[in-house]
């Protein structure tokens, strides 16, 4: 096995010194138990040809939250719909300007890269996604999306947090879900286990490397090897996991860092960080990040254009990077927003809070591509708002079950209808 890894490393690297550095690293030989466990001979031969050492099958989910309520109708545009243009005399996007994917449907003009993905068969679009009795407040609706609750219940844990609970009790490293941010979202908070947030692996490492903090943690560990049940033990456990997680993430981030160039935007940097981790042997299966604010009550056109350009460019670099490193088939990126916006424009060149919305799925491993379901029916509105046709919890269930191989019934507490996009 050692030789095997060695050969792979040679095939990847031009510099012997780097190989020896890698060989010295214990982390390299551990190579993620995931990677080694599923290593079979044919895959070895395949892997040998490939620059990546991660064998196929190690699925990664990237959730991109479009905060603020993205206007779905100007994202996936019904370019032949009179109601759309009548409702939006000022904001409606003309067919000629849109990035057409079919004769009937165009993407927002800034999303040319996503059109490329569509042509390529790596973009899926789900329309009319929502939930019953939609809430129009940002925080409440975001709560509902992040916790996967009904609109009448208040859950204190997130859907990905409960995935961690179900999957990772007893996991060696608490890094199965990472958020690229300074603060952990409710989505990643489980009852027992919570995801780790970091803006940058080096910064997290430095922050947790402060001598006093390390020594406090080490001292507690030496006195309480059994862990302990007191509230203070819970705090020390979180501290120890943060420190070990920070070390592990930092080591991994330097293992096979992405050398591709990304736009110098926040989303660009964050996706770059994620790419480097995806190429490493880290055990992370879920990455979470957000872009915003899409709350376009006023002067929507300029704001959505700016945010979509950031999205389009960063996503373009990310996909090329994943493809070049043969990880695109095993990576699924999905976007969501807490709600869509009203069909009619308002008087300030913007749109107000609405209901159902579309989601993008980006992956080299989609089974259904392009427009997975029909565009929203603008003849059938509920008080000027789109009606939802797909419950977002069914999408979560599909991803949990078919992509991450998890028990969605326990995690979501409901029997879901799976979709077929993966």
């Amino acid at each position, binding site marked *: 096995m050692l030789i095997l890894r060695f050969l792979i490393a040679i095939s990847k690297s031009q510099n012997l010194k780097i190989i020896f550095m890698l060989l010295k690293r214990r982390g390299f030989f551990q190579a993620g138990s995931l990677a080694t466990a599923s290593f079979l001979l044919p895959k070895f031969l395949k892997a040998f040809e490939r620059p990546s050492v991660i064998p196929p099958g190690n699925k990664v989910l990237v959730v991109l939250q479009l*905060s*603020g*309520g993205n206007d779905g109708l100007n994202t996936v545009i019904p370019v032949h719909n009179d109601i759309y243009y009548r409702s939006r005399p000022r904001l409606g996007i003309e067919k000629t300007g849109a990035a057409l994917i079919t004769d009937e449907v165009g993407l927002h003009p800034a999303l040319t890269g996503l059109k490329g993905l569509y042509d390529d068969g790596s973009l899926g679009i789900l329309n009319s996604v929502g939930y019953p009795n939609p809430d129009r*407040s*940002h*925080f*409440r609706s975001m*709560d509902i999306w992040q916790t996967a609750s009904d609109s*009448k219940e*208040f859950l*204190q844990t997130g859907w990905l947090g409960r995935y961690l609970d179900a999957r990772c009790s007893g996991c060696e490293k608490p890094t199965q879900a990472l958020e690229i*941010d*300074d*603060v*952990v*979202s*409710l989505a990643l*908070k489980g009852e027992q286990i*919570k*995801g*780790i*947030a970091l*803006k940058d692996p080096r*910064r997290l490492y*430095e*922050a*947790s490397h*402060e*001598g*006093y*903090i390390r*020594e*406090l943690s080490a*001292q*507690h560990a030496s*006195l*309480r090897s059994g862990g302990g049940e*007191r*509230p*203070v033990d*819970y*705090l*020390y456990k*979180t*501290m120890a*996991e*943060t420190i070990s*997680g920070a070390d592990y993430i930092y080591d991994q981030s330097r293992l096979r860092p992405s050398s591709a160039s990304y736009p110098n935007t926040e989303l660009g940097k964050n996706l770059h960080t994620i790419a480097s981790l995806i190429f490493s042997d880290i055990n992370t299966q879920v990455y979470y990040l*957000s872009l*915003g*604010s899409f*709350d*376009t*009550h*006023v002067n929507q056109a300029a*704001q959505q254009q700016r945010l979509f350009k950031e999205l389009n460019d960063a996503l373009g670099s990310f996909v090329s990077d994943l493809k070049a490193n043969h990880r695109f088939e095993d990576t699924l990126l999905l976007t969501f927003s807490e709600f869509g916006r009203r069909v009619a424009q308002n*008087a*300030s060149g*913007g749109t107000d809070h609405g209901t159902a919305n579309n989601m993008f799925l980006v992956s080299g491993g989609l089974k259904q591509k392009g427009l997975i379901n029909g565009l929203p029916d603008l003849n059938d509105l509920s008080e000027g708002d789109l009606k939802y046709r797909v419950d977002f919890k069914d999408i979560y269930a599909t991803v949990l079950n078919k992509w991450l191989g998890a028990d969605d019934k326990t995690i979501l507490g409901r029997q879901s209808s799976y979709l077929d996009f993966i």
Partner: protein
Amino acid sequence: MPITNQLKNQHLLWRAGFGPMAEDLEDLSTGRQKDFVNALWKASSGKISSIEVADNAFKGLSMGVGEAVAMQRRELSPEQKKELRKQSQKDIKSLNLAWLNEMVSSDAQLREKMALFWHGHFASRNLNIFYQQLLLDTIRRNALGNFGDLLREVSRSAAMINFLNNNQNKKDHPNENFAREVMELFTMGRGNYTEQDVKEGARAFTGWGADLNGEFQFRKGQHDDGQKTFLGRTGRFDGDEVLNILLEQKQTARFITKKLYRYLVNEEIDEARVDWLAGRFFQGNYEIKGLLQDIFDSEWFYEPRNIGSRIKSPVDLLVGIRRLLPMKLENEQVQLVLQRLLGQLLFYPPNVAGWPGGSAWIDSSTLMFRLRIPGLIYGSGTFSQRPKDDDDQMMGMKDREEMKAAGGEDRGERLATRSGERSAAAKGEGLTGRGGRGGQMIRANIDWSLYLKRFEKLPREQLLTAISGVTLQAQADLNEGLLKKYADSRSREDFIKTATIRLMSTPEYQLC
């Protein structure tokens, strides 16, 4: 750790308030709990003054225009509306800081502590400063009064009526939001009523509204006067009667008592004790004072398992530090950033269920940041974490006002002058912070005089035990060698200061 008299007194001060003040330190070891309890009641029984921050410009806009009969928001120009919203948000920040100052410096600790409890219990997000200010006033006035009165007043408040859509609750189009939450979150808790009760309850509250000045309005024409069956009783109930029926349920007393027990005593419920307390709360007609007396006058409140067992909320933590170490903050707004980063921004509860509390306060980011805060207050270190955006507040604008305000222009200069005062140990390891690039500072000037006085007669070898005695409520396994290594021992004063800051930068200090 032995349960000393001092520890018990501090336990009381942390649970019935926001911890000891620097000037309390002298009496902590000798005073009796009974005397501290009496002092708390006395200080909290005086007349309260409202916290009013709403700016005159706001008043001019909403009140002045209102005198014209056709006072409706929609008649304001878009610019006026925008101005109003901006002013309102600014004022809510002022209200936050003003209340925080009250928690720090008011002697009425018990009242403010209970007001914080009710603020989380009757959680309401509202962008209107008047509504928020009125609701806070209701809560602070009734914090130690009668729960029934509090419930009735909150139910009629413009903040709650708007937040829970009761203005839209009309005879032929009932909106169930308020009726549902009043049962699920304010009185009985889930599982004690049916969906039919929610529907019938909603009918009783039809016509309850509030006008733009925050006054309760009963809109008779919108009220459903018909017969309702609610929790097994039948009659032509209105909202007040439904609230009375809810108060007649023993479950309401139990639900409130249980939640309060978790807030004041222990996250782990002792069922027998909660039953006993709830029974007396119910018999005593929901007098909050009686319930609190039952808790604070008991022996079991001071049992070891209850001491140091609670994770401080972010507000407990920040207020507690400011009480023990009186300080002047050059920029008070930085406290808003700290609240957001730690997950508890006053007046912006995550939802109507309030802040979940307990271990939900702690994740890798919040814990590591909590451990840094005392050092940031003491030194001139910077932090670069940014809280998440709140779209409800920002209405699409990325608003970094308080962030901008907190970043220092004179940072470099300050760093240079102050770092000269520190020992190598303190400098090298975080107390003065590292990486001054692009971060923010807390910029506090601590007045150490009262605090230092407490320790002046102690021999040096007793200092650490004494400092740990006033800062930590949880049993600590900290070894002295470690603290000595990271404290600045050039002078006695430096040692006391830095050891205090180090002890506050521990997991133990997160507990009270």
